[in-house]
């Protein structure tokens, strides 16, 4: 890293951009130049700094002072006070111990104060994502060096296995085991793919990692490639994530220049190349076999399984597919060892989980917490309570394929196993918190509408089932539903689950089914009494079939 006196980071997440972060960044550039400080200060517009509550925010290192919200009119003062005179610009400063929307680590013991520790979001917001030197300064590429120089591929896999890491892409499959499957599959050509198609409604954790710490993903895929015996990797990035794609491309070029990618990495026999592949707008391409079809240039329709990608993946070769967040754990596990990783979270679900908190809470944002935290803790500690002191009614987890969690499950630890036992799903880590003003029929309709849109249409139960379910829910919300409709709805959900070809169809009825289980009376009120207790549905009785196509 250049010998700079201060490093100034401006938050560049959508909230901040919306509130003028770009302009603040340009004004900072100008002020710094005018003060003759250009050589001493490194300035960067980065991703999410974890403080959406004070966006746009500015952090000055090495002091780690957080300022926000910073307006154009504050920039001169900030530069003059802090960068010129070396004093903290107190008027703009935000207290550090405000945990809202922050990434934090809670110790496993209940009742202790959270001590901060991030794993996957560790560098996000701290480093300039477009400068490999920053990444290296924060232990970057050390894990890769350790793997390829000191360890055999089998040892790398064994270590990941012992860490107990489970996939963060939704299914929670043990990562070490998956790597072993691919490494044992026959043939000399194999592929390692990072699934960065993140499109689960309410989920944007992968974007933060890609935008804020792209090198960690480059390093992790290269390690994975070494472990499974692949020499080519892909990062399949959602089409809309342009910034992430650019940052990854920059990171790949820089890694090449430094010899962390390409031929004979770290002077060993191991060579590896990575390509960034852009999606084109289709949620189903997050499903791993659809993703593979899409890389091959086809429609993103899921394949029938078995065979699984671990033996028959891209171009029919053994292929590893891992989620961004899963991979982001890899370098840290290699550096610190599996025992270190096991210290976080629960016994069967070690590590942290990144959640996005949305909906009717005071503070929305992203947190990284150990597996096993409860919904109540999330709402009160991080969400800073319900908005307008409203009563919590339900939460919807894991994007649209997640479950609807009623208040009675607020204290169930959020880890893969506890949730499985309670019959709910953790999914992709989105938590949509809803208060009493949310109508469950309206919510179910919005959820199923998503699947109706995104169904790839390959198999009938899903293509037709999601449409029928949407029509029924529309009728109910217009006050023209019948009780028989509810039986049909229940049956459709069951069929979706049993008969669909892939996870999209199988999980598409989950939200509706949960709502019928926990909130049936409210749904029936729409039918029997023709009222919407939450006052959301219009009950105008105008429903027509053409609306279903809207």
């Amino acid at each position, binding site marked *: 890293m250049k010998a700079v006196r201060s490093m100034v980071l401006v938050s560049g997440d959508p909230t901040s951009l919306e509130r003028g972060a770009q302009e603040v960044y340009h004004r900072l550039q100008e002020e710094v130049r005018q003060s003759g400080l250009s050589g001493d200060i490194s300035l960067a517009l980065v991703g999410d700094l974890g403080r959406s509550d004070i966006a746009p925010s500015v952090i000055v290192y090495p002091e780690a002072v957080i300022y926000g919200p910073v307006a154009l009119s504050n920039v001169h003062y900030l530069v003059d006070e802090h960068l010129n005179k070396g004093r903290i610009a107190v008027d703009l400063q935000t207290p550090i111990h405000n945990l809202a929307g922050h990434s934090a680590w809670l110790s496993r013991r209940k009742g202790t104060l959270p001590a901060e520790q991030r794993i996957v979001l560790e560098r996000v917001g701290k480093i300039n994502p477009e400068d490999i030197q920053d990444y290296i300064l924060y232990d970057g590429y050390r894990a890769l060096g350790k793997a390829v120089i000191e360890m055999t591929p089998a040892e790398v896999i064994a270590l990941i296995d012992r860490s107990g890491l489970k996939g963060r892409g939704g299914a929670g499959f043990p990562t070490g085991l998956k790597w072993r499957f691919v490494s044992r599959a026959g043939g000399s050509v194999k592929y390692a793919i990072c699934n960065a198609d993140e499109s689960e409604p309410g989920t944007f954790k992968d974007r933060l990692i890609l935008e804020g710490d792209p090198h960690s993903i480059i390093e992790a895929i290269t390690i994975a490639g070494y472990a499974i015996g692949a020499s080519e990797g892909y990062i399949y990035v959602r089409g809309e994530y342009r910034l992430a794609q650019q940052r990854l491309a920059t990171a790949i070029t820089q890694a090449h220049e430094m010899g962390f990618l390409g031929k004979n990495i770290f002077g060993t026999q191991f060579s590896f190349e990575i390509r960034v592949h852009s999606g*084109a*707008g289709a949620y189903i391409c997050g499903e791993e076999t659809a993703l593979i079809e899409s890389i091959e240039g086809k429609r993103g329709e899921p394949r029938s399984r078995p065979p699984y990608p671990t033996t028959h993946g891209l171009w029919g070769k053994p292929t590893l597919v891992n989620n961004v967040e899963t991979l982001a754990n890899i370098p840290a596990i290699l550096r610190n060892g599996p025992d270190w990783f096991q210290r976080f979270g629960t016994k069967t679900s070690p590590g942290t989980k990144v959640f996005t908190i949305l909906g*009717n809470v005071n503070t929305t944002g992203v947190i990284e917490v150990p597996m096993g935290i409860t919904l109540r803790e999330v709402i009160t500690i991080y969400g800073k309570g319900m908005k307008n002191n409203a009563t919590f009614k339900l939460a919807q987890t894991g994007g*649209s394929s997640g479950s609807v969690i009623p208040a009675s499950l607020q204290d169930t630890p959020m880890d893969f196993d506890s949730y499985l036992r309670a019959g709910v799903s953790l999914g992709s880590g989105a938590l949509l918190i809803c208060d009493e003003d949310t109508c469950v029929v309206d919510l179910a309709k*919005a959820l199923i509408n998503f699947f109706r849109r995104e169904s790839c249409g390959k198999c009938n139960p899903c293509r037709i089932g999601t449409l029928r379910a949407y029509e029924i829910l529309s009728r109910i919300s217009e006050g023209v539903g019948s009780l028989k409709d509810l039986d049909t709805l229940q049956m459709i959900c069951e069929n979706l689950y049993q008969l669909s070809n892939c996870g999209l169809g199988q999980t598409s009825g989950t939200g509706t089914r949960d709502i019928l289980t926990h909130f049936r009376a409210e749904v029936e009120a729409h039918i029997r009494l023709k009222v919407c207790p939450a006052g959301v549905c219009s009950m105008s009785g105008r429903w027509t079939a053409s609306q279903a196509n809207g």
Partner: protein
Amino acid sequence: MQENQPVEKTTAVVEAALQHHGTNRDELIPILNEINQQIGYLPAASLEKVSQALRIPKSQLFSSATFYRMLSITPRGRHVIQFCESAPCHVEGGRQVWHTILDELGILPGETSKDGRWTLETTSCLGICGVGPVLLVDEDIYGNVRPEQVAEILARYA
């Protein structure tokens, strides 16, 4: 509407895209993405050229090109509005905003206005629900949109 794209422009855009990505089959979607971004949709002539260059039958190309939301084989309006209709935005007040947009534009989702100014599309979560409800006009993101802001936002686009 950008109908009748000059053939020269299409040719130039396609050639640039082929230059960037090469002609391997796995570059098909990235190539189509680039052409669509440059021209606004995929003119028939462009599909023809890509089909020849990558040696992929046109039927297969067509089946891929019609699958993805970000690709269009018909011309679109000068400005494309994408409104997020996923649950998080919906719960945060998206429903009211949506009705306002429909009233303002007088077209249905999937349609292009007669004067070629607007194409209205709904979309699934754009990954920016921290500031929902979210509206995208071309490449510009509007977050925390309230119904009374809609008219003013739309007026910015001629």
